[in-house]
């Protein structure tokens, strides 16, 4: 009853003209970010944080969340029309979406993606409403040892699923954590690794780092290999035929389930649900040979899973304060910039804010459907903007965004340095997500570890004598061991090809 009451209050707050406008602007900007190759949701959300500086926290988070899930849909458009994923989660959509576009069925591919995204996103938000309160109540019982173990578990999951080398994944997590050590020690308040530079007293800025690693690095990659021409396809028939509907319904239902349940697990990332959904569709299909040649289920399932995941991944962020992916980590950064710490305390101290954000997910999903079906032709036109203008515009926003966080040129330098680092790491195929999550979780991880050890007078057994902590640590070890033999996204893709 309380949940329903809070949700209705959330709708009342989210449905004010101002917040509706913020959600609409967020959906438009998010779709634009997703549409423009070379600008992923993590960098896009980070770059647009300055837009929200003068908004109240509720409006700011509503807009940034809308940017996030808008970008998740926008990435589909480039996958279908350009065979270039606008963001990583749309990689799998390229396979059948692009084939559909080549067959003149691009409009249907985008239509089913929009409908699937709407259904997946909406059902996922309903499920979020159901599980969020009990999970946050449970999390309130957590002490520092439990939070330490939980964050470690999240990091292990991200590390294990990040790339082709487990060692490289753990190494990148350690790099992120080490960078997070710069600044004032979170427990004693002493400066650490600051080299007497006042700009480093607040630590290495998360937003400039993300802008560098994802935004500037992506522009450098684009400058090296400019993207391709847009394929000319029919966008006239957005709604699938009766036969296509019949094929898509099951894919949408399965995609919703896969996306939601994987979204609940901190660290899974957006790519895995889409790949699993694709494999599932291929496995259940009576004609698997159609996959790779324009099978509509190959678009409907992964796209639904993608948006179901996007909304479900807010559960660990809002209830536990654990980000599931770099983009969610940026959202967490946005919460922090607005003076809010996501987690169970926020859920209970600022319910009006949390429930307004959750209610805005429902509103945003409707807006995205309205925006994307009739305006798909317009988004396709935007794809024709030459890459040079996208590069320059993105860099300009990176400079603006990095500077405006602290009104400091130091952050612009920081962004540039991390841009070069990100470019090199991307070229070498080192996983970036673990470093980002390590960077944002570092201070809390250290604080909870040290507070736990203070509680136990330095005895590490505190982590083994508390059941939840011990279970989470055991799970973390299991994840790492299993990861050594796991299916990475590239392996899953290989499996799907087979």
């Amino acid at each position, binding site marked *: 009853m309380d949940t329903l009451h809070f949700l209705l209050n959330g709708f009342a707050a989210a449905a004010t003209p101002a917040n509706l406008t913020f959600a609409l602007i967020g959906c438009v900007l998010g779709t634009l970010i997703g549409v423009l190759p070379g600008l992923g949701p993590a960098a896009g959300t980070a770059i647009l944080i*300055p*837009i929200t*500086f*003068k908004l109240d926290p509720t409006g700011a988070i509503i807009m940034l969340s809308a940017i996030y899930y808008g970008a998740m849909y926008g990435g589909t458009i480039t996958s279908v029309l350009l065979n270039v994923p606008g963001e990583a989660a749309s990689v799998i959509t390229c396979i059948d979406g692009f084939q559909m576009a080549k067959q003149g069925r691009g409009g249907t591919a985008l239509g089913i993606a929009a409908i699937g995204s709407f259904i997946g996103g909406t059902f996922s938000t309903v499920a979020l409403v159901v599980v969020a309160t009990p999970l946050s109540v449970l999390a309130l019982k957590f002490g520092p040892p439990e939070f330490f173990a939980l964050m470690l578990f999240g990091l292990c999951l991200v590390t294990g699923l990040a790339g082709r*080398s487990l*060692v*490289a994944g*753990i*190494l990148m997590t*350690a*790099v992120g*954590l*080490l960078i997070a*050590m710069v600044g004032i*020690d979170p*427990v*004693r308040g*002493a400066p*650490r*690794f600051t080299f007497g530079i006042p700009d480093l007293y607040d630590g290495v800025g998360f937003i400039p780092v993300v802008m560098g690693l994802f935004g*500037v690095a992506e*522009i*450098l990659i684009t*400058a*090296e*290999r400019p993207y391709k021409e847009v394929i000319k396809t029919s966008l006239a028939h957005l709604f699938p035929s009766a036969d296509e509907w019949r094929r898509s319904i099951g894919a949408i239902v399965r995609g919703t389930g896969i996306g939601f349940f994987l979204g609940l697990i901190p660290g899974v990332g957006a790519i895995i649900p889409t790949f699993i959904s694709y494999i599932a569709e291929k496995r259940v299909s009576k004609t698997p040979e159609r996959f790779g040649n324009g099978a509509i289920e190959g678009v409907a399932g992964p796209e639904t899973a993608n948006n179901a995941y996007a909304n479900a991944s807010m559960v660990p962020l809002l209830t536990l304060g654990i980000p599931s992916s770099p983009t969610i980590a940026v959202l967490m950064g946005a919460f922090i910039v607005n003076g809010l710490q996501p987690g169970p305390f926020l859920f209970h101290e600022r319910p009006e804010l949390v429930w307004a954000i959750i209610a805005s997910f429902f509103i945003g999903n409707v807006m995205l459907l309205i925006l994307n079906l009739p305006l798909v032709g317009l988004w396709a036109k935007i794809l024709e903007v*030459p890459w*040079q*203008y996208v*590069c*320059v*515009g993105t*860099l*300009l926003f990176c*400079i*603006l965004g990095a*500077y*405006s966080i602290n*009104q400091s*040129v130091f952050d*612009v*330098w920081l962004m*540039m340095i991390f*841009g*070069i680092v990100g*470019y*090199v*790491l991307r*070229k*070498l*195929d*080192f996983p970036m997500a673990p470093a980002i999550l390590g960077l944002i979780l570092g201070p809390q991880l*250290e604080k909870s*570890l*040290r507070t736990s*050890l*203070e509680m136990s*007078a*330095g005895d590490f057994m505190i982590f083994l004598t508390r059941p939840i902590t011990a279970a989470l640590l055991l799970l973390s070890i299991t994840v790492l061991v299993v990861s050594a033999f796991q299916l990475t996204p590239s392996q899953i893709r290989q499996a799907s090809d087979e």
Partner: protein
Amino acid sequence: MKIGWQVGSVCFFALFAFGVWLSLLLPLSDALGPGPGFFPLWLGLIGGVLSVTLFVQVTRQPAGAAGEERLTPDRPAIQRILAVLVLLAAAALVLDPLGFRLTSFFFTALLLPALGVRSLPIIAVFAAASGFGVFHVFYYWLKVPLPIGVFGI
């Protein structure tokens, strides 16, 4: 790619070794428990071991196993990348003295031709929009504090 991963793991080792050295300059514990150097020290040690492990793993792999992609871009691509980096650095240098409007105007006006845009009217319009339009929207409408330079622009 293999040599890239080897160089990468050596760089990471150097980073973690530096972290360990810096951590040892900080108190590792105090009366209340672990000190400021405790966590980064362990992190540095773990990172160092992982860097060595990665180096050994990559070195033992046959050539080409770590990926076949060519790492070095071709000459025009290098020129474009350098143009982006040089102009970014220049923008960071002059942002405070020149202000956002002039910096972004010149940044756009110089970067577009460097990336291959040849139409002067388009460059002029885009540069003006980037410099003055973006400033107007962010500074006056969105109230985002942006630098105003020595010329008052």
